[in-house]
């Protein structure tokens, strides 16, 4: 089985919650999709279960966004293949809290 090493950038609250520093490197089995990536991330950091995707539906939480390669992938199919640059580790996959404030 092919395993990709994917760089993930977590938002402040989730870095703090998971005790992680900087980028998280996640081992993702092919194909590198949003679903496989988030499944692998939640296995690596179980405290994140339910904070990015609702449980048990695995639907993206309303105020969470997914960005990569200057694209907003938030509404892409969870089973669509992520950009090759993400799968190769050239570009990070960014999990972002939606803009809030006045």
């Amino acid at each position: 089985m092919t395993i990709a090493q994917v760089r993930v950038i977590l938002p402040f609250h989730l870095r703090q919650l998971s005790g992680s520093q900087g980028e998280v490197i996640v081992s993702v089995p092919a194909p590198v999709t949003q679903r496989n990536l988030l499944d692998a991330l939640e296995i690596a950091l179980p405290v994140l279960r339910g904070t990015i995707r609702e449980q048990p539906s695995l639907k993206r939480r309303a105020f969470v966004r997914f960005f990569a390669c200057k694209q907003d992938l938030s509404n892409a199919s969870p089973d669509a293949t992520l950009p090759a640059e993400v799968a190769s580790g050239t570009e990070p996959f960014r999990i972002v809290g939606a803009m809030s404030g006045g």
Partner: protein
Amino acid sequence: MTTVRLLVGTKKGAFVLTSDGTRKTWSIEGPHFTGWEIYHLKGSPVDPSRIYASQHTSWFGQLVQRSNDGGKTWAPVGKEFTYEGTPGPHLWYDGTPHPWEFKRVWHLEPSLDDPDTVYAGVEDASLFKTTDGGTSWHEMPGLRGHGGGHYWQPGAGGLCLHTIILDPKNKKRMFVAVSAAGAFRSDDAGKTWKPINKGLKSPYELPDPEAQVGHCVHHVAMHPSRPKTLFMQKHWDVMRSDDAGEQWHEVSGNLPSDFGFVIDVNANDPETIYVVPIKSDSEHIPPDGKLRVYRSTSGGNEWEALTKGLPQKNCYVNVLRDAMSVDTLDPCGIYFGTTGGQVYGSADNGDSWTAIVRDLPAVTSVEVQAIP
């Protein structure tokens, strides 16, 4: 030597304030969970080192944290709050049916005799319970399904269950209050519930001012020595019941405003009660820019303003429903936090006040532990 510990929840984290029995000097630890809303944190009465905290953001949802060492270190526990069965609808803002949806935990009430048992009051309003220290949470569906739940309709603050009171003399009796629904009592350890709102009048908020449900109860307090006597700060009106909620009567008396959120009872005198009047439901500021705690030593109706040490001009903060607490020392200590980030304390029954800390984020809750 006695340790007094204040557990302060704020819009941006939790703080632990510690003093000795004199309650003169305080150390401040925190913020814990920086950037997260901490709606409430509370310690177990039987194991004060065991503390539970409700941690939430709209971005990343709900967590529950547990400390086993008095708030020094924390670990997340279970965070799945799933309604029992297929939750039917309550009324939505437009009067249409809307399915129950979990949003957040407003209040955590540890059991009086088991540190692993905790009750959680949540939005959309329901009651959950853990018996394994927070690892798993299970709904007590009798409240939501008591027969009137489908008529509940959220107010502007959401359909939240914010008050849980356990009767220390009757293990089967508990009280809860739900914003924009009212107060409810169970006499069988939470299996079945009945509304206890007779005597409440809400002429500005309800088409039928004396409806059985729909009243916007803000907080309820009880002295443990007299569990049939309840004091309520309703949206408007301060109320009292002497028969476990069967009948309420108004005790607002000479208060400058009977709108407010907090109410509490002196630990050493079940007839001495405290409120913080707020000008109105539209304004949410103290009357005349003066932050005043009002004390009644007669169980209501006759009130005196307590002002020493509190700002008496240009003060426009609010005090939210879970943001007042009393300790068990003598003289009784009273503590409250404001939306301006101040936590005030009195070590003399409310006669005088000092700002323990001034510049926290907006305070959502204050609980106190007096540890021998």
